[in-house]
């Protein structure tokens, strides 16, 4: 393998904006996945680019930059928002949680993450972080979630691969809206 800096560790590296970027700079202080970060950012830096390029949190994906697909969803003070529609200076003083901050303290995947694995809720995995954020925020809510609410929230994201069925099943299960998946189709299937 050619040397690559892996951008998915918990290391935090604050890059200065490119010297040639001529817009005004802002000092921001934010909480990202529980960690205090101070950074100098240019006025027009998208929150997605701040997370991905400056902090190396590349789990937040960009599917459209148009606010339509939901891949970039993060929690802003515990509310799911599209990070492609915000500028980094706008989050000064706020807290952000990304997919990298979803696992339990000991590193085990949270219930929704585990349900996605158990129910084959992802194929390419590109939409997955946004959906996990949206659905985890539902799961962490105190008021129980109804099936209708779940369906409403699922429509916040585009998944091009799965046809949504296994995502819905994973979410239903993790939200306690259906019993665990029965291992119905194991074993060799052969012959008509």
């Amino acid at each position, binding site marked *: 393998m050619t040397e690559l800096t892996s951008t998915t560790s918990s290391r935090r590296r604050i890059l200065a904006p*490119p010297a040639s970027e001529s817009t005004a700079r802002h000092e921001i202080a934010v909480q990202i996945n529980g960690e205090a970060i101070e950074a100098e950012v240019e006025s027009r830096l998208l929150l997605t680019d701040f997370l991905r390029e400056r902090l190396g949190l590349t789990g*937040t994906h960009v*599917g459209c930059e148009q606010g339509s*697909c939901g891949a970039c969803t993060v929690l802003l003070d515990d509310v799911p928002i599209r990070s492609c529609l915000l500028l980094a200076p706008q989050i000064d003083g706020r807290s952000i949680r990304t997919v990298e901050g979803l696992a339990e303290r000991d590193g085990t995947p949270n219930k929704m*993450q585990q349900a996605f694995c158990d129910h084959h809720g*992802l*194929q*390419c995995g590109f939409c997955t972080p946004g959906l996990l954020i949206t659905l985890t925020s539902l799961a962490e809510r105190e008021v129980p979630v109804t099936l209708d609410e779940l369906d409403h929230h699922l429509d916040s994201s585009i998944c091009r691969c799965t046809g949504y069925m296994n995502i819905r099943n994973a979410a239903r299960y993790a939200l306690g809206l259906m019993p665990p998946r029965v291992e119905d*189709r194991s074993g*060799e299937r052969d012959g008509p």
Partner: protein
Amino acid sequence: MSEESPGYVGRSVPRVEDERLVRGAGRFVADLHVADAADVAFLRSTQAHALISRLDTSRARSMPGVIAVYEAADVVDQITPLVAAELRVPPGLAELGPINKVQPVPILANPEVTYVGQPVAMVVAESRYLAEDAVELIEIDYDELPAVVDLELAVAPDAPLVLIDEQDNVGVHIRHGKGDAARAIANAAVVVADTFSTQRHVCAPLETRGILAEQDPFSGALTVWSSTQTPHRLRDHIAESIDVLADDVRVQAVDVGGGFGQKGTVVVEELLVPYAARHLGRPVRWIADRYENLTADAHAREQVHHITVAADADGKLVAVQDRFLVNLGARNMTGLVVPYNALCHLVGPYQVDNVDIEATGVLTNTTFTSPYRGAGRPEATFAMERALDLLAIEIGMEPSELRRRNLIGPEQMPYRTGMLDRRGLPQEYDSGDYPELLSRAVDMIDLPSVRKRQSSPPAGGRVIGVGFAMYIEMTGSGPFEGARVEVTRSGRVRLYTGASSQGQGHRTTFAQILADSFGVDMADIDVVAGDTSRIPDGIGTVASRALVTAGNATRQAGHLLRQRVLDAAADVMESNPADLELNKGIISVVGSPTKSITLAELIRAVPHAPGGTGSDGLSETSYFRPPNYATASGAHAVVVEVEPLTGRVSVVDYVVVHEAGRIVNPRIADAQIVGGVAQGIGGILCEHIVYDPSGQPLTSTFADYAMPLASMIPDIRLDEIVCPSPTNPLGVKGLGEGGAVGPPAAIANAVEDALRRMAGADVTIRTGPLSPSRVLGLLAASPSLN
């Protein structure tokens, strides 16, 4: 296969890919951090057809933060124009006298631009922000030329030329058939002739296309990370077009966020970026934005079929005649792939003696097109299955019964259609049981009860309809795919193949196959797919081929490696290979399991073994060349509800019965079908790339190009039958595309069934998308309702 002990094949083994991806630790091209990488933005044509009269990049070139600006003149002698590999015509088809124009794509356009979105200049800057700023500073003027967008208009006499240097707007033409269709139609008891079109789509994987290239300052070799579906093809294209040795180009497909055909077509951007990385001696990356993805990357599916089907009074088909047009966009990029796929799959599972099909690939001043999941089959199936429904209405027969009467029977397998396949060889369906597919679909959807519900007044004003569609898919196209397997220093087993994954879970399914054929636990296997430095040749993951070709290559390589390991162990252990067995990574003497050696010990011992062959040994490469296509098939049945007041269509029940040979991982296989069905549902209900008559794209965001959302997709019910393919030792068939083939036809049939039940409405659905406004329009236009 008794020798393949652990028996992973056939089980819903959990995917090894998932853990990393749910943590946000995927590694997509845009996630890679290469120090000092520069970003690219393109100036793209805003005109559908024009001559550039002035192009001034000087202000952009001098903008701070801009590293370089390339226009056509800068690269014309440096990069060979792109000629797609798919333009080859096999000898058998060449005898049919096809037209297949080779039209190299200019790397950057000048002076002629031929579609909106065509790259005109490339800016490389310190950031994407700055690159886009610089694009704004480029001054460009155009002299407009007449443009043609509509494919029927493009082949009309006196149509404006799409490319000013061509004689006409035909890029591809081929005609093929059997028997005497014209005569059979003239003598038939019932004839239905109509026009059915599939509207323009875009694959729109959620991850757009991306490429990052870096040149090693010492060796000059290029490393390219790409979201391609076809890494080896991309490597060869890059090597040829910028004149470097293929050995010095390493393409790696990292995590790829869906492809569906769009990323299986090499585009000029993928040559420009590596070129710039070499030219500038600096890593360069380009990540398409969604606007580029929807307007300037490959579109698909747009076809118009003028089809005639004829039957005797009992509904037995006697002839099918079809003249169809395929919108190629501004260049013939993939030749016969889509037109001929549509041609040779049109008649599908039915036995018809007289066939005459003429396909014309038409150039228009629109973005070029590529195959999209199904690659001509959904479009052909739409025409054929719609025509069958009209025929059933004409005869007064239940549509599923009409289908049943015409299906090829299992006793006729292998079945020769009397036509030529895509390779130009006699078309032969290897195995299948189409009547069983249909009868199960009819049972599962419970046709009698649907018909009964239809005869009582609609609940809540919503009218229901039921529709069917059947198709076959010749999968596992060659010519080959490879697998290289090796024992690593730590005693693990690694598999390398060119058939990379865009989400299909190859790391899991290929490991299942290798675990069985070699004889280790899956946990001891790593799969590295899509790294051209690890296996010299490959093609990629397109056309439902990976499992058939790479899967069987993996199995073969596993067997060869197993023998290799036993031979080497025999040298080291000073015994006879025939007396040794390999189980769970431990080689032992049969009957005395204490005399054993692990793979890790073996790989270290091999170089020291006295009397060995001297070959390093513990690695094997194998290529699988499928002798014929493995033909998968399916029957889809659907119940829809239509709200007459709003025109809204809901899919309330969707059933798929499919046949795709032996199944390696049932859960992954089922999910492939469901994903395909969802794309088909989106295709018929909401997706539509729209151009205005001047060639301006009107659907450039996901707000305009409506993608299917979760609420549109019901819990799809699946069943399957298994007719192992005799074409390959694993007995598998491809199934990546199948799910997407049936829905447009099945849903259109169901919606029409519903509409026809409304107060004598007399409607024919000829195209999608069946958006609420279009459904209302169909009702408003129905003569019997007015």
